[in-house]
């Protein structure tokens, strides 16, 4: 059964210290900014955050980092023009970083949702990111073994949801939402609006309701920060 939360604070209620939190979005597209801010207000600590990046500017994910709530970031691309909050913490040794190639990050999330115990990928073979990883030659090509990446919680931004939890996305805001929703024990989605079951085309549903636990209608998106 899907919980329709009154607001983002109610939606993130109960997220515990020490959780691994999968956070969707690539840039601003699909970023669940309302849920991220609520997570900051909730104040759960010692979090492991999985996102493609490590926060920008001073708001959103960067604010969680700045508030000292995050122990570790697992991402593909922490270095951006305005990722100074992460960079300062990282250089000060106050935050852990696991850099994962973007496709491997996606596939590890997908494996977690799909019950795959591990998989062999050609990505990263011969690089420092393969160091310490098991490798194997299959059909004459070298692969490295990667493991699933499970979340205790996923916070994702979708476009429209129905009250059964089915979701559709909008353009490139789809990005990590569908695979994070399936990879987490508790999936919380912010949407622009919620419709009745039957109002979404069952052929076009991207995330079926089985992967969604809580829905909330997000407030208006914040303005783009000056860079």
């Amino acid at each position, binding site marked *: *059964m899907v919980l329709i939360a009154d607001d983002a604070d109610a939606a993130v209620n109960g997220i515990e210290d020490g959780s691994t939190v999968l956070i969707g979005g690539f840039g601003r597209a699909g970023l669940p900014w309302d849920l991220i801010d609520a997570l900051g207000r909730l104040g759960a600590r010692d979090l492991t955050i999985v996102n493609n990046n490590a926060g920008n500017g001073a708001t959103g994910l960067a604010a969680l980092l700045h508030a000292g709530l995050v122990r570790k970031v697992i991402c593909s691309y922490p270095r951006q023009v305005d990722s100074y909050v992460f960079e300062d913490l990282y250089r000060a040794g106050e935050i852990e970083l696991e850099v994962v190639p973007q496709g491997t990050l996606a596939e590890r999330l997908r494996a977690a949702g799909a019950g795959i115990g591990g998989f062999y990928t050609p990505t990263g073979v011969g690089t420092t990111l393969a160091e310490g990883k098991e490798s194997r030659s299959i059909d004459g090509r070298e692969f490295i073994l990667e493991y699933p990446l499970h979340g205790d919680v996923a916070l994702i931004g979708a476009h429209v949801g129905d009250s059964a939890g089915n979701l559709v996305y909008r353009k490139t805001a789809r990005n990590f939402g569908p695979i994070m929703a399936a990879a987490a024990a508790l999936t919380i989605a912010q949407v622009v609006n919620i419709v009745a079951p039957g109002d979404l085309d069952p052929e076009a549903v991207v995330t*079926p309701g*089985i992967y969604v636990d809580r829905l909330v209608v997000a407030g208006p998106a914040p303005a783009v920060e000056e860079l």
Partner: protein
Amino acid sequence: MTTTTTETVENLNRGPIDRVEMARLAAHDILPGSFVNLGIGLPTLVADHLTPGSGIVLHTENGLLGMGPVARGDQIDPDLINAGKIPVTELPGAAYLHQADSFAVIRGGHLDVCILGAFQVSERGDLANWHTGAVDAIPAVGGAMDLAAGAKSVHVMMTLFHDDNTPKLVPTCTYPLTGRGCVSRVYTDHGTFQVGPNGVTALETFGSTVEELSERVGINIVRLSNSV
């Protein structure tokens, strides 16, 4: 593990139950809001006994979440079938999935309950339901092994005895396995049982005492005790 004050119910003033009653019992134990897959054969009957409004969502592994009742008349659409290849309907809130996504639902542990038929179930919960092991039999597994390995709870619906009166609840499966230690509950005409690491516990019997069933099946079936 959990404390219970329930005792095994022995219904002795009646005979074994029929398939419809078995289906009703199996349906009754599914929690509201559950995601459920019903195997081909006997388990499909369970769909008729789910409470409307319970929010239970049916999955069929050929690619649909939110499956509705069997299609009749004008509803029949050759593109909308269940895993048994029977025309079915879709309910509001349904979603279609391709085969990799549909089995990701199963393997990923997202189904709350799967109800399967069986040739044999062992007292430890091993399941044999895909192959009789006969030398000339054509092996055919379909999605049974995925369901056995993937669903959070695997329940079995079967008659307790084969036509030749040999029991289907056995110390060790002699038919080829579908999955090891996966079954937790078995609905039969003579009773409903828990199976698993602690062996077989009768939850309810129909027409026999627990001791009579123990003897006829040939394995030690215990009663629910007041405090486990």
